[in-house]
């Protein structure tokens, strides 16, 4: 059932996602109550350091959490009127690749080394689009050509190892787009690539996103990368969303102590670096500890300056930032207002 007006344009609605892994070393509290929406055609950038729960959240909504040891404890993932978390494996398989595509940091993990690229792309075209061999080969070559692989028709018969890292990522993008998905999830797709190749891939994806009118979730630890491609940014820490807003809000008017610290610790390419970098003390949380209170509390200057006891015990809700001039979508999860804490 749809509500009037704006709700129609929401493509993906994730509510209170909780994912844990039950391992020999104890329970890993990987994702601890993550909620967000994605509109049609929108690009959401998810940023955060390693272990903050970026990949696990996106794998969960694709139904790809290995179980055991993983378990989606709670949450709903509404996509086009259906809760993906309640679908059967074969129903989910039809959605993956067709409606939602995913590309990963290391294409070699998702490409089969003993099958030619052509075989791998045509397989999905046959499964999802019901094409025959010659139709699917023609389409596969068109796709490779579209992502900028020279001599595409001939390269269908090459194996993954015959492509460079950048070219393999292009192949993955071609496979991802082969069935016109409505949503593309890209998990650190350029992290292993050199910057000039990264720039090529980002340029390509931006252009294809418009052509295909897809929504996109781009996961990265590199704040620079999302600044250039995302409409909205979501900052994660300790399996939780710390702050979320338009990219201008998050980069230009960050309100969460963690976001603020992260931006301060980054040197800038476009100014000479004489000042000392501000550093966040300590290290990221051990996800095997049951989350209580704010995950950033042990490292937070603001908590210390304002002497906030509640940060240790009470989990701050994700709410509109104080004094937000916008439409209420700039949200954060923090008990303090940094504008008071850093006077």
């Amino acid at each position, binding site marked *: 059932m749809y509500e009037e007006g704006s709700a129609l344009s929401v493509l993906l609605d994730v509510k209170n996602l909780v994912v844990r892994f039950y391992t020999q070393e104890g329970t890993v509290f990987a994702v601890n109550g993550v909620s967000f929406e994605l509109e049609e055609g929108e690009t959401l950038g998810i940023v955060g*350091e*390693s272990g903050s729960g970026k990949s696990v959240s996106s794998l969960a909504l694709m139904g790809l959490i290995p179980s055991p040891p993983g378990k989606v404890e709670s949450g709903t993932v509404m996509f086009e009127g259906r809760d993906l978390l309640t679908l059967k494996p074969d129903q989910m398989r039809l959605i993956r690749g067709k409606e939602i595509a995913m590309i990963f940091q290391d294409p070699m993990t998702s490409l089969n080394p003993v099958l030619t690229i052509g075989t791998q792309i045509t397989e999905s075209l046959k499964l999802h689009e019901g094409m025959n061999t010659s139709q699917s080969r023609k389409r596969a070559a068109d796709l490779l050509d579209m992502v900028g692989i020279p001599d595409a028709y001939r390269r269908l018969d090459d194996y993954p190892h015959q492509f*460079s890292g*950048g*070219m393999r990522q292009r192949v993955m993008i071609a496979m991802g787009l082969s069935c016109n998905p409505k949503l593309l999830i890209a998990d650190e797709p350029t992290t292993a690539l*050199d*910057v*000039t*190749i*990264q*720039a*090529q891939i*980002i*340029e390509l994806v931006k252009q294809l996103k418009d052509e295909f009118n897809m929504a996109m979730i781009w996961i990265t*630890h*590199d*704040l*620079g*990368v999302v*600044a*250039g491609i995302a409409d909205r940014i979501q900052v994660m820490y300790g399996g939780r969303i710390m702050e979320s807003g338009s*990219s*201008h809000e998050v*980069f*230009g008017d960050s309100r969460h102590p963690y976001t603020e*610290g*992260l*931006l301060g*610790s*980054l*040197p*800038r*390419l*476009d100014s*000479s*670096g*004489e000042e*000392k*970098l*501000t*550093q*966040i*003390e300590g*290290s*990221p949380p051990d996800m095997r500890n049951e989350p209580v209170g704010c995950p950033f509390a042990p*490292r937070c200057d603001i908590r210390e300056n304002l002497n906030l006891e509640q940060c240790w015990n009470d989990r701050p809700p994700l709410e509109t930032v104080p004094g937000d001039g916008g439409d209420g979508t700039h949200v954060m999860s923090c008990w303090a207002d940094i504008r008071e804490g850093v006077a």
Partner: protein
Amino acid sequence: MSSQVMTAEKRKSLDESDVILEVTDLKKYFPISAGIVFQRQVGAVRAVDGISFHVIRGETLGLVGESGCGKSTTGRTILQLYRPTEGSVRFEGQELSTMSGNDLRQMRRRMQIIFQDPFASLNPRMTVGSIVSEPLQIHKIYSNKKERQQYVEQLMEKVGLNPYFINRYPHEFSGGQRQRIGIARALALEPSFIVADEPISALDVSIQAQVVNLMEELQDELNLTYLFIAHDLSMVRHICDRVAVMYLGKIVELGPVDEVYDNPQHPYTQALLSAVPVPDPQVEEDRQRIIISGDLPSPSSPPTGCNFNTRCPVRFDLCFEEPDPPLIEARPQHYVSCHRVT
């Protein structure tokens, strides 16, 4: 006159005539062999293909470029961990390329290396204490066990590790702390020169600043000289005094950081800098990117003429002819290797 000298001055005062390291026409080729029974050499990877530069005492020289361009090989060949195929490496006045045995061992005390992956480079079965003191034992310094332990504890404190953890093992530490262990070990023999090979690439963003700040503090305190190898160009601008840009085994541009970043002359440097994302949506919206197409050619069969001529957006006839462009001083202290730059 030149803003370059000012740059060096405002960062730290360096004596330009105090050259600690001089590298001249350095080459390192790795043989490629074929044949199962009779191995024969069928070619060579020209990992470092004739580079020259010097480093001033107390400065940080950045070495940047895409993976595979020869940065690590340069660092290792300087330290004589790889012996040069050709060329000279003069360190504190002495020629290293022809040195061997005990002389070389003595020189190695003065030059150390920090690696990218602190986990892979630390022996998992050794305690922090024995990792840090191993170089002291090899060089037979502090034969008194108690004195040695005290010295190791001092080193740990210096790099921000609690000496209380001296008997713990590497896996009990976080990535940032492990890099501190690597730094403490490198400092044990009181070197004057450190090759830092991607020391922060494997660390989380919030930890990178901690390690970089530490390296800067140690440099000031101990008057260290760094060769800082990195692919994070923003961090290189922050930490380095000068930067050398490598492409396919050669230095294509070299100069003071602010000068090179604000006025890049070589088409490759221009493309490289324009490709680096900046964490500011406003800047990103207004930016013009120079997208260079294609991949890096293989260093076993580099192009004839300029190495960059397979991807260069402004190449012309001359770029395909021998000899390749020499490194010339295009602006004060700013060296460029390109036929378009004179």
